[in-house]
């Protein structure tokens, strides 16, 4: 009888794992089921461009089902809960799905309701997020009607998906306003709860420099306690205030709602405690986790999910064979950072090594690290094609190894 592999989530990680495992096993060896609540797969990096009408909904949304290779069962239903003790998943449509191996790939969800006032007065009027498609489209309309004043870009709390995206939005909106000839009419401010522009020191220094060059104000250690859209105020827990005419914010994130309903599976925020090297859950040996759904100390990003794929495929196989797991995943992440005017930065890092300057993918590589270039921008655009045609099918990306390459990185002393 084939082993039963159930994958929760048909996004980046779930689709990629289903396709990898389908290639690895004959149908007589493994039955693979992917569960998702809908059939809309959003290319999330594209959301950044929607507010500027540089990307449109019809280009970045495709059918989830159609990204899955033949011989994979797609079950469209929300998840009610995982019953770890009985090795089964209960679905909202009443189905019980027993499994031999479970892969949790349900990502992170936006929780704007966690912040007082955020979804109250002004929501989608002078307070927006571009982190979902509807919000990004509403923001596009608002930006068109915006002709000056205080524009604030903020993130409420870490962790968030793609932690560089709000910075990219700031750079792109600076470009957008410049092109429209109204940049001088706008006071642009970036607000973060972190103690610097980004999470790691060398990259933070570079990014803070870029903000300054572009005349974007930086407010750090601002932990948003309340959003008051009616009076255009952002209020921190320690009672500082930042006034705005237009707020673009990234709400707090948590795990998918069923995680909290599944006893023993998740942490306080609904993420699943996961071994950072093997990607096995700490909840039970036959439960693995990939992508944004984990609590591992890596960015919540598509590149992380992609680089996790090889380790996870290997470990599912080892678990089914009763062998010891391999501890291969190194926390590798790789992100293009759009900086506007047709340029982008690139950062490449892992659990141990922070983003450093240099070249990618090696010392002679074409892409400069932590430095603006047109080639990096083209790389970001090309990535969309690779996403649908290499990443989701579970293939490697030519020239980009799963483990972080060290050649090409300029080692630096700790302080900058």
């Amino acid at each position, binding site marked *: 009888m084939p082993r039963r592999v159930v994958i929760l989530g048909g996004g980046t990680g779930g689709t990629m794992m289903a396709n990898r495992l389908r290639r690895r096993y004959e149908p007589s060896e493994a039955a693979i089921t992917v569960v998702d609540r809908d059939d809309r797969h959003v290319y999330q990096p594209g959301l950044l461009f929607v507010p500027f009408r540089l990307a449109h909904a019809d280009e970045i949304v495709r059918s989830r089902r159609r990204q899955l290779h033949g011989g994979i069962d797609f079950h469209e239903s929300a998840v009610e809960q995982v019953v770890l003790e009985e090795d089964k998943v209960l679905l909202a449509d009443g189905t019980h799905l027993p499994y031999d191996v479970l892969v949790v790939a349900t990502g992170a969800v936006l929780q704007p309701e966690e912040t007082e006032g955020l979804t109250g007065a002004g929501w989608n009027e002078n307070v927006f997020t571009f982190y979902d498609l509807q919000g990004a489209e509403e923001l596009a309309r608002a930006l068109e009607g915006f002709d000056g004043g205080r524009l604030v870009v903020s993130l409420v709390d870490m962790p968030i998906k793609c*932690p560089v995206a709000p910075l990219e939005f700031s750079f792109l909106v600076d470009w957008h306003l410049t092109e429209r000839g109204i940049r001088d009419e706008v006071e642009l401010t970036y607000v973060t709860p972190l*103690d610097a522009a980004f999470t790691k020191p060398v990259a933070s220094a570079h990014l803070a420099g870029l903000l300054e060059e572009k005349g974007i104000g930086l407010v750090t250690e601002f932990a948003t306690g309340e959003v008051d859209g009616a009076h255009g105020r952002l209020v921190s827990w320690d009672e500082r205030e930042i006034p705005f005419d237009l707020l673009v914010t990234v709400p707090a994130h948590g795990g998918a709602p069923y995680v909290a309903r599944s006893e023993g599976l998740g942490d306080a925020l609904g993420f699943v405690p996961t071994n950072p090297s093997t990607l096995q859950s700490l909840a039970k040996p036959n439960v693995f986790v990939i992508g944004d759904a984990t609590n591992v100390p890596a960015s919540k990003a598509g590149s992380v999910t992609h680089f996790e794929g090889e380790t996870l495929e290997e470990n599912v196989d080892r678990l089914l064979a009763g062998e010891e797991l391999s501890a291969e995943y190194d926390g590798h992440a790789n992100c293009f950072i759009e900086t506007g005017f047709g340029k982008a930065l690139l950062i490449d890092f892992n659990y141990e090594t922070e983003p450093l300057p240099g070249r990618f993918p090696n010392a002679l590589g074409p892409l400069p690290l932590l430095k603006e270039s047109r080639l990096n921008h083209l790389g970001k655009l090309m990535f969309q094609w690779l996403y649908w045609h290499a990443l989701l099918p579970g293939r490697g990306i030519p020239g980009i190894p799963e483990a972080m390459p060290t050649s090409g990185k300029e080692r630096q002393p700790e302080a900058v």
Partner: protein
Amino acid sequence: MTTIETHVSELERDAEGFLVRPEQWSRELALEIARENGIPELTPRHWQVVEFMRESYLTTGAAPSIRALGKESGVPVKELYSLFPKGPAKLAAKIGGIPKPLGCI
């Protein structure tokens, strides 16, 4: 009877002042670190948070974020900010002698 007191100035700390070896921590040291950071006394509410932080770190290997603290420590976020101004998770971790919370990447 004599006691040998260790002072925080004698211990190895990272650039931001977090203890490198959490096992060297004691309640007396916590008070010293708190004072260094502008908190003159540790009230029972401070201790509730510091002990929760330390306990979580020692059992799970990671310090909780502010939001997780607000949900699980029994002290709401608003009060966390009045107890530990600016960065409650960071400051409570420092006082509790555990590494800087990794939560934000």
